[in-house]
């Protein structure tokens, strides 16, 4: 059975890539731009196929045995010295869970995009990029060695860059895109160094070999810790965690479905996946683990606070994404691997839902994104309102939504992390409260109260192509908590024990409290907060704790000014100086050639005298 399916494994990433090639090659077949339908069919169809293939494989192979494993090696990639890398794919339940998210949610978002991007002159380019992204993401997920994973890793980064800057005419988008790529590139470079360190230490880059080796490594040895931290650097960059989180809010410049797919559901969670993938390595070093946990916890809080005061609908969602991924990192940090992945899945569902419905709102309001010009939309966009509400509920982890189960798992783990009350857990609870607050603030500001300025000329832009994915995602956001991936074979960890009842209670109460606060403050979307000017603290939160300002001062400005100063190459002056000296000497000597015979005779005499003098010396 397994070896029957192995060959098909390669097709899962291959199909979207073929779609990509087809899309960029289309104009070569008939020279004028092909009709949108063609592009849509190719783009959506290829992803759909790979989604179906994934489902098929899961159904027939993975569903009934949790320890199922598929692997296929395509060709020898590198064989230099001791380095031997194959172009190999490997699939277990962890990968399968990711595959389901990527292909499934990816397909839905493709479908949605087909409607959303209608009439854009870059339609074909859009789907090409999107397909390339899915392909790269799938490679990332199924890679058997770290270098192949890195290939996918960079590939998705590139696609993110291209799609953020998709509307290239507005150079602000381009800047956001570059920021995203470069900030993540910083993390990626750290990750690459981590790879190199791992290789020079363990002599392999195969993930499984590394994991086994790391498991057998003496605890807390420096190299392993360092390698783990370097990998964490990569993860932090990709998943927009502290201190590299600044790119994600700006990344909202891209089309909304892109934000849904790349910057909520799949790419940004790649960091979580990486750490889960390499969990034995991280297990081997407490420092690394606690680093992960602390990064997660801090990000969770900081992003949450920022999300509470944003005024742009997509920025709120962006910060909430950062904060939710913070949850996942926190989970990883406390060793709740399953919880992390589980939350990753549910988050993919409800955040995609939120983004897509936000997309419909934005489209309905003719690309108006400011919260305070919205309001009272629940009457005008009932369907969207429904979806959005479900999304918010699930995001806030109200009981019995998908988000509830995953978050609950995490919080339990966090509780018993140090066998009782601890900072990590408390941060989690606080985060839950904040989440409840900002998610419902968002809901109320958009859909409740009386109409905002933009709400007047609102017309429902949803069409069939867009409603279908929304409804599917809504269902998943509600009941996705029921399908937990059987990861116990991947992660050998003790199942969550029993925490005292009040802990459960707090976990449930916190988001509801947040909801209540939001209700009090934003029920009528004219809130006291907005009527009076912002306090300094809010300004700080609004600017995402001033990280952008800090980095601009610390890194960007010095670099650019240095570049400007040295634009024409200081080292050049060495040679110009030499040339100048030669020219001066030339002028000096030329003055001696003044054409006066008597002067010549004098110089001759001097020469003779010099010679005789030298004679005495020598």
């Amino acid at each position, binding site marked *: 059975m397994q070896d029957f399916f192995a060959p098909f494994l390669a097709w899962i990433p291959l199909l979207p890539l073929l779609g990509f090639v087809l899309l960029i090659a289309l104009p070569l077949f008939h020279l004028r731009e092909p009709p949108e339908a063609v592009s849509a069919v190719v783009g959506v169809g290829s992803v759909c196929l790979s989604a179906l293939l994934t489902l098929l494989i899961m159904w027939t192979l993975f569903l009934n045995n949790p320890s199922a494993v598929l692997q296929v090696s395509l060709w020898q990639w590198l064989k230099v010295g001791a380095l031997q890398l194959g172009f190999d794919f490997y699939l277990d339940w962890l990968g399968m869970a990711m595959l389901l998210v990527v292909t499934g949610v990816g397909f839905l978002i493709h479908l949605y995009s087909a409607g959303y991007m209608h009439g854009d002159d870059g339609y074909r380019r859009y789907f090409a990029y999107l397909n390339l992204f899915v392909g790269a993401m799938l490679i990332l997920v199924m890679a058997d060695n770290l270098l192949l994973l890195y290939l996918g890793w960079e*590939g998705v980064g590139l696609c993110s860059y291209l799609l953020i800057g998709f509307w*290239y005419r507005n150079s602000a988008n381009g800047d956001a895109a570059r920021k995203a790529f470069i900030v993540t590139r910083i993390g990626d470079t750290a990750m690459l160094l981590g790879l*190199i360190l791992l290789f020079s230490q363990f*002599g392999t880059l195969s993930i499984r070999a590394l994991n086994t080796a790391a498991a057998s490594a003496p605890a807390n040895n420096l190299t392993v810790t360092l390698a783990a931290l370097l990998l964490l650097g990569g993860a932090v960059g990709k998943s927009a965690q502290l201190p590299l989180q600044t790119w994600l809010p700006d990344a909202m410049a891209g089309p909304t479905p892109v934000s849904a797919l790349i910057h909520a559901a799949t790419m940004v969670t790649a960091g979580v996946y990486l750490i889960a993938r390499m969990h034995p390595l991280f297990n081997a070093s407490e420092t690394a683990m606690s680093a992960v946990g602390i990064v997660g916890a801090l990000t969770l809080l900081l992003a949450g606070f920022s999300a509470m005061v944003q005024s742009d609908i997509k920025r709120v969602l962006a910060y909430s994404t950062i904060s939710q991924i913070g949850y996942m990192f926190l989970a990883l940090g406390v060793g709740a691997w399953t919880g992390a992945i589980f939350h990753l899945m549910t988050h993919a569902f409800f955040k995609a839902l939120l983004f897509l419905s936000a997309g419909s709102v934005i489209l309905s309001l003719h690309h108006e994104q400011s919260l305070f010009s919205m309001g009272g939309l629940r009457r005008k966009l009932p369907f969207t309102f429904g979806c959005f509400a479900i999304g918010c509920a699930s995001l806030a982890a109200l009981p019995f939504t998908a988000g509830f189960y995953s978050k609950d798992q995490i919080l339990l783990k966090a509780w018993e992390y140090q066998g009782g009350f601890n900072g990590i857990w408390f941060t989690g609870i606080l985060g839950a409260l904040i989440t409840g607050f900002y998610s419902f603030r968002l809901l109320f500001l958009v859909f409740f109260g009386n109409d905002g300025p933009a709400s007047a000329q609102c017309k429902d832009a949803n069409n069939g192509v867009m409603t279908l994915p929304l409804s599917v995602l809504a269902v998943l956001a509600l009941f996705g908590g029921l399908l937990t991936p059987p990861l116990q074979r991947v992660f050998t960890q003790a199942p969550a024990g029993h925490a005292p009842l009040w802990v459960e209670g707090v976990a449930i109460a916190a988001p509801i409290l947040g909801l209540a606060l939001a209700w009090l403050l934003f029920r009528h979307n004219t809130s006291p907060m907005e009527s009076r000017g912002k306090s300094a603290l809010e300004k700080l939160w609004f600017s995402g704790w001033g990280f952008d300002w800090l980095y601009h001062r610390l890194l960007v400005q010095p670099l650019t000014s240095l*570049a400007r100063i040295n634009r024409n190459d200081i080292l050049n002056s060495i040679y110009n100086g030499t040339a100048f000296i030669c020219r001066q000497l030339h002028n000096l000597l030329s003055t001696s050639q003044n054409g006066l015979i008597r002067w010549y005779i004098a110089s001759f005499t001097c020469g003779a005298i010099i010679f005789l003098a030298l004679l005495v010396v020598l």
Partner: protein
Amino acid sequence: MTPFSTLPAIIAILFCGGILAWLSERYFNRGSRQISLISLSVAAALLATYWPHLTDSPTGVWWDSVQINWIPRFGISFSLAIDGLGFLMLALTVLMGLFGLVVTWRDIRFRRGFFYFNYLWTLAGVVGVFTAIDLFLFFFFWEVMLLPMLFLIAVWGYEERIPAAIKFFIFTQASSLLMLLAIVTLVYLHYSASGILTFNYRELLNAQLTPGNAYWLMLGFFIAFAVKLPALPLHTWLPDAHTQAPTAGSILLAAILLKTGAYGLLRFTLPLFPEASAAFAPVAMSIGAASIIYGALLAFAQQDMKRLVAYSSVSHMGFVLLGLYAMNTVAAQGAVMQMIAHGFSTAALFSLVGAIQKRLNSRDMAQLGGLWSSLPKLSATALFFAVASLGMPGLGNFIAEFLVLLGSFDSNHWITAIAATGLIGAALYALLMMQRVFFGGLRTPEDAQTRSPTDLKAREFLALISLAAGLLLLGLRPQVVFDIAQPAIARTGTLHKKAPTATSQISSPKLRLSAWPDTDHRRGNSP
């Protein structure tokens, strides 16, 4: 070994092709391009006759060699030979020659015949450099390739061409004088030691030198090659030369001539002076790292698109230097791969800049912008090669840079770590170029406002696409290259046995575990 074997034939064909091209233009006033195309194709065909050596692993190190007495007075002989490394370089040379010819098919109006004369002679000189194994002959070709290049820059270049040409020539010439000095000294020392007066590389390989002498001679070679590479602080000729040269000239310079420096290091400096090189390695590696970062920084600062690409080559060639002096197979293979990949990507970028200049007659990024909307094909290609040059995995450049870093890490952790930040720099300048030229609102220089630029011609597009395919192939199936280059590198690998004396003292012990016995077996030694 008959004198009428393939290698001299290749060189002869290029030389004669050049002369023919000139004459044909002079007397029939057409046909020079066709002649050059034909002669290059013939050269390629001749080169292809070495195919059997690729498929079966060659037994001997040298696939083929020729030796004719030239100046017996000094034991100088006209001796050429080819091995895997040489083959790769020759293939690169011929392919890039063809690419440059095709992609700039319509560029040259003024004295076309003379242009292609110089073009082919440069290529012939380069072929000679890559195949000569007599040090005198090597130097001979080393100079022969400069002169036509000088004319290419000085006659068909842009505004500031004359100073640029002079600078280019003086830098390379002055440094190569040092090399000549070193060569003659080496021969003299070998002669006075062994009584055999010869310039033959294979015999000089086992010359016995005192460490002091070896070090000085090594420096003589190193400087000459470092200028060509170019490495800090001897790089300043390059931006001017690249910027002022005509597109085809820039392609030759970037894709081929720079490689002669790297080739020289790998073929001559390292094997001839192993201990000295090992002792010098830390310095060389630091220079390499410095070039990587400094080049990136300056590329980031440029206004002129061509200068940007030029400085980016400084940065990329820094990886080559780093890899060569890391003294292990992995890094050396990376360096070789970098030579090829950089040749491809930079040649493509220069041709694209040339295309833009031809259409909008400006390279100034302040005047350009938003070209994507008017030139989608060109922009997409540019995007591809920009991404390639910032080291996107799946393309050749990444493989090269990764291997270089991987290998050099064993030799020196900190330099490697610093060099790795060059990857960020690459992203900075490459994306900046994309942003300023192709994205944003459409801006074209005033004088170009009137006529709307036409997108890439099929000819240009095809040439570029083939390069792109090549890069993709190098990125996904690089093993072919490694297999070809392996024996040659393994031969220099003999020095890596001696290397650890230099490397071990550098590698900071706190980073490696003493606990495990098997940490060392994988310092990439040659099999």
